[in-house]
């Protein structure tokens, strides 16, 4: 498994190459969400990296609106000849690179691409031009195990670095400093009373505003698993580390005790959803309707002690005079009665009430609003 490194202007490329990094990802302020190079610096860094035997990847993972697209694309095509590969997140940028350059492509599938069917479709679409798929850290070990062997394209996963929680195109921090956004880089830290999580790192730059989790993502202890899955590239995002610490982390990750990288890392870390994607559990819970209305035939709309009960007949159902019903209140209390009569809201007796009709039924003790009515014969 090779190591790809998210390069910052302050990093020492020579030392990184010496330590065994295979590739550097170089992001510019204009083309990437969090790259810190200007275009000229990026080109210089790419030239130096190549001379040191490193592969170079131009990071162009900005989301690009139509109004900026042409100038974005033009400046991008001026950059690509200096790089071995380019990686994008916006499908429009991928399409541009596909149509107008011959550079190798990396697709950043880290947002909303969590299934094999979709990933294979991207793979088919970009075909031979696709050199790598950057997988999402929201994928669990089980999902990675399922997905990686089935893709033809080499895959990459973040193994150590910050967790991006939120990206807005709007300038959200500069208003707090009382200054208009001049698109320069602003760092901040945020905490919400309503969350036990504190110390969210925040950034505002030319690409908008970003929030990160206070703890970083770390799979240093799981590298063996990832190797067994035949993951091709592990990525290190050293943001938050001084260059010399980052070099130590590189050493650790490439050693036969990669778990030591966790101790060398200056921040607290988590494994995220690698063990299990816990949001699955809640997803299923949220999707379960709280009460099963499937077999209910009516719902109580109004009730007053001793008065008739007003109900709405539910879709596809009917009530008829003489039938035996069971009322189930929202707290689970049940009561059975026979429908001695059914009346419309003008007080006329009805033999039958059809779906969606609002009708009165004889008083039912302990009836409450929202109680459901079932046909006893179908219980």
């Amino acid at each position, binding site marked *: 498994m090779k190591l790809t490194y998210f390069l910052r202007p302050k990093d020492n490329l020579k030392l990184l190459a010496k330590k065994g990094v295979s590739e550097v990802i170089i992001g510019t302020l204009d083309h990437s969400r969090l790259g810190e190079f200007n275009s000229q610096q990026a080109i210089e860094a790419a030239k130096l990296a190549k001379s040191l035997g490193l592969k170079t990847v131009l990071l162009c993972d900005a*989301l690009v*609106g*139509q*109004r900026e697209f042409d100038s974005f694309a033009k400046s991008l095509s001026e950059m690509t000849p200096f790089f071995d590969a380019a990686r994008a997140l*916006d*499908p*429009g940028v991928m*399409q541009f690179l596909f149509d107008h350059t011959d550079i190798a492509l990396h697709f950043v599938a880290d*947002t*909303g*691409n*969590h*299934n*094999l*069917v*979709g990933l294979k*479709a*991207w793979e088919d*679409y970009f075909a031979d031009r696709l050199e790598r798929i950057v997988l999402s850290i*929201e*994928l669990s070990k089980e999902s990675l195990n399922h997905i990686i062997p089935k893709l033809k394209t080499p895959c990459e996963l973040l193994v150590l670095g910050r*967790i*991006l929680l*939120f*990206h*807005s195109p*709007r300038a*959200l*921090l*500069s*208003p*707090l*400093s009382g200054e208009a956004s001049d698109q320069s880089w*602003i*760092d901040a830290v*945020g905490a*919400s009373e309503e*969350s036990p*999580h504190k110390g*969210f790192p925040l950034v505002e730059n030319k690409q908008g505003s970003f929030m990160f989790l206070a703890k970083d993502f770390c799979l240093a202890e799981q590298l063996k698993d990832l190797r067994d899955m035949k993951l091709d590239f592990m990525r290190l995002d050293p943001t938050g580390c001084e260059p010399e610490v980052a070099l130590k982390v590189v050493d650790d990750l490439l050693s036969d005790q990669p778990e030591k990288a966790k101790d060398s890392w200056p921040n607290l870390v988590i494994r995220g959803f690698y063990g299990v*994607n816990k*949001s*699955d559990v*809640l*997803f299923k819970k*949220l*999707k379960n309707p709280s009460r099963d*209305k*499937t077999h209910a035939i009516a719902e109580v*709309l*109004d009730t*007053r002690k001793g*008065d008739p009960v*007003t109900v*709405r007949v539910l*879709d596809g159902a009917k009530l008829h005079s003489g039938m035996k019903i069971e009322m189930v209140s929202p707290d689970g209390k049940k009561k059975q009665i026979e429908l001695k009569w059914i009346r*419309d*809201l003008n007080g006329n007796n009805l033999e039958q009430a059809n779906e969606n009709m*609002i009708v*009165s039924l004889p008083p039912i003790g302990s009836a409450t609003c929202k109680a459901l009515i079932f046909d006893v014969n179908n219980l």
Partner: protein
Amino acid sequence: MTKNQKFPIPELLAPAGSLEKLKTAVLYGAGAVYLGGQKFGLRAAADNFNQEQLRKAVSFAHAHGSKVNVVLNAFLHDSDFVGLSDFASELKMIGVDAVIVSDLGVIKTVLEAGGPEIHLSTQASCLNASAAKLWKSMGVSRVVLGREASLADAAIIKNESGLEVEMFVHGSMCMAFSGHCVISNYTQGRDSNRGGCAHSCRHEYKIALNQSEQEKNAFFMSSKDLEGLRLLKEYVEAGVDCLKIEGRMKSVHYAGTVTKVYAEALAHYQVHGNFLSDRIEEWANELRKVHHRAYTQASLVEPAGQDSIHNGQDGEGVESAVAGPIVAVTNDAMVIEVRRKFHDGEELELVPFQGPVQVFKASKLRSLSDMPLTETKPGSLVKIALIPGASEHVLVRSTGL
């Protein structure tokens, strides 16, 4: 665009969080509604539709000349696909007009299952013509543009891609690029891209800017709500095919009121070829009567700036102003499902499906068993004297905000 008219208008797409809201939106003038099934969509907490309700929804909407789009816009993990293919073919059989999808895996599955036509959800953040063309080749027939797109962008995207373009015209806005926020996933274990958003962006945060010593408390990442009423001409000129109202989780009052405003404004254009109605202030005022944060035009004209941030937690309209919808009409009374307390003799407003609001005094307030009442209690059904224009699903509300 609605064809065969002197002045064609875009379709108006309204949220339908329940069958009641669907009927309300359709009756107040929605040309199409969107709703969620029991699975595969966002808004897990909405009162989503089961198959039987979906059938009813389609038959009611089609009977009134409106379309039904079903949201399948969650980003799915492999284990979530169980049943999707069957669900997509059932939707086609039921007569659902389109599905709204953000995940390429879902698009492929719907296509293979021969499901309804596919609209790309705003969750996919399609912001440029290059992306739209790519999605077209993947099989989508319409793109719901990211909320960051301007009306000028929409015109270019439509012309260059040849796709239908849908844009939001009203409602709450995600501060993040849609689909690019996972705050809830990591802080609450709730996947915002599978229906679990916990609205963390609406919280107040204590911010320490690195370059200053100071800490500031601010609702710095909460967006104002979108209101595109005064830009309808620009939507039409940009060739936007469909105007979307956000808010499946919002009330029946919201569904009815907002739909009515935009439907009436579009109907005015259809006849006159302009939006210069003397009712424009009345419509704007109506939009202030539903629960909302301060309004913004967001990025419709210029990129959303500092004035698009809602620095506060509460809404500005008072939703409780609704007295309730009419659920039935008898020979001499209208039956109201009370949402907010009102008393006999109180001045109320009846919001007809078309035309100006009518002010009247509630009289002969009584229970369903005709016991006289002096005031109502929320959650109950009451009768008041019938007035012209009353019919099922018409909204009745208090006059005061």
